[in-house]
């Protein structure tokens, strides 16, 4: 046994490092993420621009754009993509809005149960869901093609429309509707003058969740179009890069279509003010 006794005990403070470089600041925590973003988001985007405006020999050219805009098949695919995306967005909105409105007016546990019922399928892989819908269509002996494409896209994207609409409507101050009623507005007027305008942010973010992804979601159109149905612009991009067998093909052509997609995206975002919108369907946590 060692016999030790304490003869002094004093507060100990680690000496401060003189070099301020090594003391950490909370701001600096985003440096790794910032570098990651520059490397894998900013530079690749710049590369898209670079490849879109250069030819095989690396010289500056507009020929990629001329090639794209003179190719009627590609142009019509772009046109159809936008049209289809719009159509799917509108169908989803028409189907989802009443659902979201009804759910938002339900009370307590019932609302909770229905909400969970709508959320649950979102966790099943969307290719598996496409498969399920395809099986149903074949069971009903509906042929593959344009109609099947629209049904498939609506089926896969519907939940993404319901969630942002619901979260906007549930946050809405109900007394506003009552106030409109009180001021003499009928039920229809209350809806068109109060409820609908106030839910516009939800409509926008829901539309964002559907419109842009539909244009690139070639998995679904590949599944449902059969030999007659349309395809979307995303397919063209993927094929330009990968060809059929998955080998690199037309980088410059692919970059050009990507740039066109990026421009469509920016135009849509600016038109809807979606950049400010944090109300994201996928971000809905329950």
């Amino acid at each position: 046994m060692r016999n030790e006794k304490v003869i002094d005990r004093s507060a100990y403070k680690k000496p401060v490092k003189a070099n301020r470089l090594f003391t950490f600041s909370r701001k600096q925590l985003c440096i790794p993420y910032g570098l990651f973003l520059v490397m894998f988001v900013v530079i690749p985007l710049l590369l898209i621009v670079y490849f879109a405006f250069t030819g095989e020999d690396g010289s500056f050219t507009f020929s990629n754009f001329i090639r794209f805009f003179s190719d009627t098949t590609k142009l019509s695919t772009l046109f159809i993509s936008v049209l289809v995306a719009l159509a799917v967005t509108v169908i989803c909105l028409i189907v989802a809005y009443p659902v979201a409105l009804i759910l938002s007016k339900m009370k307590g546990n019932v609302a909770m149960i229905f909400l969970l019922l709508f959320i649950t399928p979102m966790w099943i892989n969307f290719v598996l869901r496409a498969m399920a819908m395809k099986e149903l269509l074949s069971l009903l002996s509906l042929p593959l093609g344009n109609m099947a494409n629209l049904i498939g896209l609506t089926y896969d994207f519907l939940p993404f429309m319901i969630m942002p609409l619901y979260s906007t409507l549930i946050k809405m101050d109900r007394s506003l509707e009552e106030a409109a009623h009180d001021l003499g507005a009928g039920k229809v007027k209350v809806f068109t003058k109060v409820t609908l305008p106030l839910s516009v942010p939800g409509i926008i973010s829901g539309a964002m969740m559907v419109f842009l992804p539909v244009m690139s979601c070639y998995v679904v159109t590949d599944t449902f179009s059969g030999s007659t149905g349309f395809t979307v612009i995303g397919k063209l991009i993927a094929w330009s890069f990968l060809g059929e067998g998955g080998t690199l093909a037309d980088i410059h052509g692919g970059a050009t279509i990507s740039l066109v997609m990026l421009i469509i995206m920016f135009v849509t975002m600016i038109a809807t003010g979606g950049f400010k919108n944090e109300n994201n369907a996928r971000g809905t946590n329950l």
Partner: protein
Amino acid sequence: MKKFLSFLYVIIVLAFVYVPILILVFYSFSSGKTTGNFEVFSFKWYSKLGEIKDVVLNTVVLAVVSSAIATILGTLGAIGIFYSKGKFGKTVNGISQIPVVNSEVVTACALVMLFMALGFAHRSMFGVYVGHVILTTPFVVLSVMPKLKQMDGSLYEAALDLGATPTQALFKVILPEILPGILSGFMLAITLSLDDYIITATLSPLSFDTISTAVYKSIALTTEKASEKIPIYRALTTIIFLLTVLVVILNASVKKRNRKGEVK
């Protein structure tokens, strides 16, 4: 009457959502290969799940690992963005939103160009992981940010005041405080990664398949050989569906209990 009609409407939409899945579940117990013709009740396809074991494993490992990286990167990023008040934070936050709104095809193809420009193989496991981290990190940032905003601004200072170093304050106070946001960001990252098709299809080595890419090959390509595995995927869907329902019920009941446990 009006109430009944609106109830009916919700039921019809729910049917639209659930009927395809339930049909899949139903026929997964049929010994036959095709739907519409229930031969004999059997677990035949379930016993064959071993054939797609690798695909499932690939999917899960990719999802968990990339989400873990995304969660660390995104959490640190969110804290950094939140506390840097100047243009720097705003810029990082802005760039961070690009992959959220950008279409996955463009994100994936832009990465292909980067790897090409760097002289790397354009298909690699590294590429798939980078792609998934890019795809999911912004959502982690979006989940963590509100928790930081809700947090009492003095907590960090209080920790320093009580003798914690900045690192200790981060681990003992800030991180526990925003933990719910980090966890939901992680869960969100996992679901996004599980759901991804395009990034994996574009960037992964040709021999690497996840559930998305494997099922795509079976349903989009109409060859006899490709559709061979569809019945097994029915069994897989059934299992995933049941697991999801289970998690949802558990989650809901835990939340309910927590709510009851709160002292008013």
